[in-house]
């Protein structure tokens, strides 16, 4: 039943480009990318309880990895994709090290400092990253197997479908991860770290895997974005992107699988519902974030679950 519902939703999303125009398809694709980013953040912040304001930095690291690789080595998407994920994951490991010693405010500030350093490096190190103007990135192009071209990823629609496939695969992997022992251990670390080590869990390893997983997902989204946009600029990966991802996770409900997905879709499509008020988008965004944290700290999903419990 549940499987059927999920299949139906995926099928509906996949059919969307036949019904809506190019602009809407683009919005949907953005939503998918944010779903990956918010789900990634949720691993570390929602499940493992280690706050991070650096998801935008890992997103950028993934994107710039593919941009620099294709510029310097001429390698294509299929080589750059795993490399981009690995490089982002490696930086995730690096940021995870402070998290072993710091908590709460201090950890949050370290992740913010890290995000800022990455942004400044992307925008200042002109000879390596292209500075403020960024770098061009080629299209993914034809996908061939045994010498025959299967299909081409160049049009908006093909990018959308490709992103959908990747997003579904990644979400499935995350779901499996959360159902496995490691998911349970993350929750244990979040609930009570002292107790977690008292029952024999290696909390160091647990936190680091959460940081790596979280960063790797952002890296994956970054590589796809770079190719889809045909280029990268530092301003696509500011701390405000990180804040947006945090907002999506919080609004949807952190520590739940579906919450960040709903939050990402909701906040990405919100400006489209504003019509003539679209320029108030970011303003409303901020207001919404304040209201959610203040009134619905457990997010939409958390609130819905609580209401359901009360009535059953």
């Amino acid at each position, binding site marked *: 039943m549940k499987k059927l519902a999920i299949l139906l939703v995926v099928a509906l999303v996949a059919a969307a480009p036949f019904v809506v125009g190019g602009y809407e398809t683009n919005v949907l694709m953005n939503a998918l990318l944010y779903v990956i980013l918010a789900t990634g953040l949720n691993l570390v912040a929602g499940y493992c309880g280690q*706050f991070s*304001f650096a998801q935008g930095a890992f997103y950028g690291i993934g994107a710039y990895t593919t941009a620099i690789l294709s510029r310097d080595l001429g390698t294509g998407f299929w080589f750059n994709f795993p490399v981009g994920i690995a490089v982002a994951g490696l930086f995730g490991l690096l940021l995870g*090290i*402070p998290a072993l*010693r*710091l*908590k*709460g*405010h*201090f950890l*949050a*500030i*370290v992740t*913010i*400092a*890290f995000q*800022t*350093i990455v942004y*400044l*490096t992307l925008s*200042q*190190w*002109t000879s390596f990253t292209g500075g403020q103007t960024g770098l061009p990135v080629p299209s993914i192009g034809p996908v061939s197997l045994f010498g025959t071209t299967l299909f081409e990823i160049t049009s908006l629609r093909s990018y959308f479908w490709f992103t959908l496939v990747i997003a579904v695969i990644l979400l499935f992997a995350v779901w499996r991860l959360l159902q496995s022992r490691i998911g349970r251990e993350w929750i244990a670390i979040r609930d009570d770290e002292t107790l977690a080590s008292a029952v024999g869990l290696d909390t160091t390893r647990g936190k680091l895997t959460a940081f790596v997983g979280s960063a790797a997902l952002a890296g994956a989204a970054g590589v796809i974005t770079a190719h889809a946009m045909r280029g990268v600029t530092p301003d696509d990966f500011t*701390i*405000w992107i990180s*804040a947006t991802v*945090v*907002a999506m996770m*919080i609004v949807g409900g952190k520590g739940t699988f579906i919450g960040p997905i709903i939050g990402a879709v909701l906040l990405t499509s919100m400006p489209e519902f504003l019509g003539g008020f679209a*320029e*108030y988008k*970011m*303003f409303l*965004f*901020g*207001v*919404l*974030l*304040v209201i959610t*944290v*203040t009134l619905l*700290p457990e997010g939409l999903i958390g609130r819905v679950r609580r209401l359901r419990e009360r009535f059953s």
Partner: protein
Amino acid sequence: MDLFLQYLANGVVIGSSYVLVAVGLTLIFGILGVVNFAHGEFYMLGAYAGVTAVTLFGMPLPLALAVVLVFSALLGFGAEAILHKPMKNRDATSSIISSFGLAVALQNAALLTLGPQPRLLKTEFSTIPIELGPVFMPLQRALIPVAMMVLIGALYLILRYTWTGRSLRSMSQHATVARLCGVRVERVAVVTFMVGAALAGVAGFLMSSVFMVHPIIGNMIVLKAFTVVILGGMGNILGAAVAGLLLGITESMTSAYLANGLRDIIGFVIVIAVLLFRPQGLFGKAFERS
């Protein structure tokens, strides 16, 4: 050597603005435990208020300064009602996220109402040059460190010798005990936010003659102020004052002798190192967590 002194002076000017922003931030953190990311917006709005008072209403500088103080303090009053009052008994990250939201909202409100075009404050002092040996700068710029020292000195005296100051300090030691001893915690919270906002607003106004004023100037300054707060030790006012000047000087020297591109990065690199190896800050006392 002459150039070195000039860089030093420039660093002190910039550093003074860091001090003003960071001291408010560290007060709000030390006393209320709130990590306020909207603090840069006090700076930004203070700058706009000052520029408007001077250019649109033709106010003399001291009067404009008073306007900025009052206006920013009111902003602080409002921010407390949003960021602190409803957030008691929440985990540390709630106030961070909420203040991030407030920062986004305020910045975009400024963008929508004031527009993106940058403004610069020009007054009768802008063109008067002063020379101190080899160091040269407009009088208005030289007044920034002076204003900073007067304000921080006044704040220090207030905290040291008045009833309000003692209440504030007792709160930072232990909120519950302070409440039991008759400190009106709610009022202290409001006063803390108002003082912090006023200092940041004045900093924005003072710097509006040095840097262009536009809606997103608060971003970088609040991040840098956080590095100063950590370097000085969370909640430590004198620490923040020293660290603020140090950061300004370090940035000025980095830009002059290393590379201009490294200027903004250096503080963040230092802060991560400090948090890893000396989490109590450069000037804080080591404490044992049991």
